[in-house]
């Protein structure tokens, strides 16, 4: 038991951080809450490092300390820190600022639970935990659009969550266990496996905003503060993707799940980019883009069990995605929510312009940026798993993605400056931009640092 607890020290730290931040907020000490949150999350990140290379499970297999969950911590905790810094910039000084930090900690905790889930019940609770805080965060401004977004978000969450639980009940009937590692018993009961899988796809798909469970995402991102949208598009999404990975790695191949995931992947990425193509609110555009990126994650999941590259590719792409998506949202936070305000911004503020171009090109998968390395590994994994057609479609979608991102890049450099905004970025945003920029470039150029650890 002591060993088990030692292995979840990072999670415990995150929990404590959230609680302490809440206490600080109650004492009306938002700066302390911020400091505590940042320190706590960084501490948790640090405490994760000794766990690198661990591959075990604790509490009777209900929670896994493996490659996926450890790297989830290493990626999601820093991403949370960056989001907190963004939130501080955007929401600092507002009423109950500290609750934001506290809730962010809980949502991250939920995502970490998802990423390491070894039991159906943890799956359910992880979704709930990461969802609850999210509703509150989205509704934080308490205005019309924010509450509308939160309400839609909530309804979607509740319905999909209920469907998932209902489906999971069949898995218990089929295996006699709630442990994911016992799913291999479903070899002879493919229908049960299928029903449960569909339910899981519904539940986790909602969290990861896969099509057709994505509808809440653009609305919620638009209604929420930009920093929260950035956070939601990264942390819970990656958590859900990793949870899906945890589920399918134990699912018998005979159920044909790779094909289903592949189909969902194709639909998701194509639909996401097509919808993004005609957006003019840049937050919605990025929302749809993040929907499409979720489709890319699924390419890696398809290869789970068939290609040794699968886990590597998912983790690398998660890291890349976190860096570039947060970066892009940070720029949006600095510049504004519509495409109009982006015209000429690249000329006025060269650093911001270069950073945004790098983030967007990375999202489009252009080498040598992080997104390229991630997608490259994903494609490699899927081809190795025999899903060449999936890689082909994904590659075709990359073209679509380019069109989407060029819609932002083009006006940045080519249209006259029409807005007066565009002051120098606030120091915190600068930091966030600097860090995400470094990682977007760094993961591209020095992918070995990641890959070496993953091998």
């Amino acid at each position: 038991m002591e060993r088990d607890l030692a292995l979840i020290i990072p999670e415990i730290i995150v929990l404590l951080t959230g609680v302490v931040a809440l206490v600080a907020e109650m004492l009306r000490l938002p700066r302390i809450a911020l400091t505590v949150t940042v320190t706590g999350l960084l501490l948790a990140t640090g405490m994760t490092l000794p766990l690198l290379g661990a591959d075990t499970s604790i509490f009777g297999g209900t929670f896994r300390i493996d490659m996926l969950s450890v790297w989830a911590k290493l990626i999601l905790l820093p991403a949370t820190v960056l989001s907190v810094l963004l939130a501080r910039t955007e929401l600092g000084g507002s009423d109950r600022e500290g609750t934001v930090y506290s809730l962010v900690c809980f949502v991250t905790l939920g995502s970490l639970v998802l990423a390491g889930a070894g039991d159906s019940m943890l799956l359910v609770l992880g979704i709930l935990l990461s969802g609850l805080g999210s509703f509150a965060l989205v509704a934080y401004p308490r205005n019309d659009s924010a509450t509308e977004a939160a309400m839609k978000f909530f309804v979607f969450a509740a319905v999909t969550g209920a469907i998932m639980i209902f489906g999971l009940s069949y898995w218990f009937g089929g295996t006699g266990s709630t442990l994911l590692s016992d799913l291999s018993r479903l070899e002879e009961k493919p229908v049960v496996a299928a029903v449960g899988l569909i339910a899981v796809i519904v539940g986790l798909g909602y969290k990861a905003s896969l099509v057709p469970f994505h509808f809440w995402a653009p609305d919620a991102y638009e209604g929420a503060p930009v920093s929260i949208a950035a956070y939601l598009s990264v942390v819970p999404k990656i958590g859900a993707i990793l949870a899906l990975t945890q589920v399918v790695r134990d699912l018998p191949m005979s159920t044909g799940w790779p094909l289903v995931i592949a189909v969902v992947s194709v639909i998701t990425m194509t639909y996401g980019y097509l919808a993004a193509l005609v957006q003019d609110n840049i937050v919605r555009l990025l929302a749809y883009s993040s929907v499409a990126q979720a489709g890319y994650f699924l390419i890696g999941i398809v290869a789970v069990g068939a290609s040794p590259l699968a886990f590597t590719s998912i983790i690398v792409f998660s890291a890349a995605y976190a860096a570039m998506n947060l970066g892009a949202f940070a720029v949006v936070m600095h510049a504004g929510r519509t495409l109009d305000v982006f015209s000429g911004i690249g000329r006025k503020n060269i650093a911001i312009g270069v950073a945004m171009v790098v983030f967007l090109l990375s999202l489009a998968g252009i080498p040598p940026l992080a997104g390229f390395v991630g997608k490259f590994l994903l494609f490699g994994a899927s081809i190795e798993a025999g899903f060449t057609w999936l890689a082909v479609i994904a590659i075709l979608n990359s073209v679509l993605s380019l069109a989407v991102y060029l819609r932002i890049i083009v006006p940045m450099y080519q249209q006259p400056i029409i807005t007066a905004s565009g002051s120098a970025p606030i120091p915190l945003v600068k930091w966030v931009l600097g860090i995400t920029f470094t990682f977007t470039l760094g993961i591209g150029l020095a992918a070995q640092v990641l890959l070496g650890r993953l091998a």
Partner: protein
Amino acid sequence: MTAQMFFIGFFGLAGVWFGIVVFRTFSMVRSALALLFSQTALGAMFLSMQAEFLGVLQIMMMATEMSIMAIFMVMFMMDPGGLGEMDMTHQKRLSLGAGIVSFVAAVAVAVFVDWGPVASVSPDAAQQTIDLGLELLGRSMLIFETAGITILTAMIAATAVAIQPVKRTREQ
């Protein structure tokens, strides 16, 4: 036909029936009450399936929950008394279709899957509770704790969302 079978069928039918009533009445309060009856019937069904602890818990929890729900219902409904015969539904046909398809699919799974051998006996009530307790504090401890944290989060989140903002945020 054993008694157990009868009770399961009876309470099941009652639960489903009250479930349907929830969406057939125009009165919010009646909806809440119907849901309460439905859940209670299910609690009784648990009892008849020899899951005593769960059955009792279900009835107790649902009673409280439904009463809270009724209060909110009155608060938020346009026509709490159900006097206006307002139709508070939309896309009925599609929803009905979806409901029926879901039902048929679920039944199909239940019927066509070979669930394996059926256990004739179950642990008695005391044993169940002991088992459950061991489960809670053993293997499932992390789950249990997570549930606790989730409840904490729910409290924070619900409060954060619900309380009146003191001053307007910069975002507006």
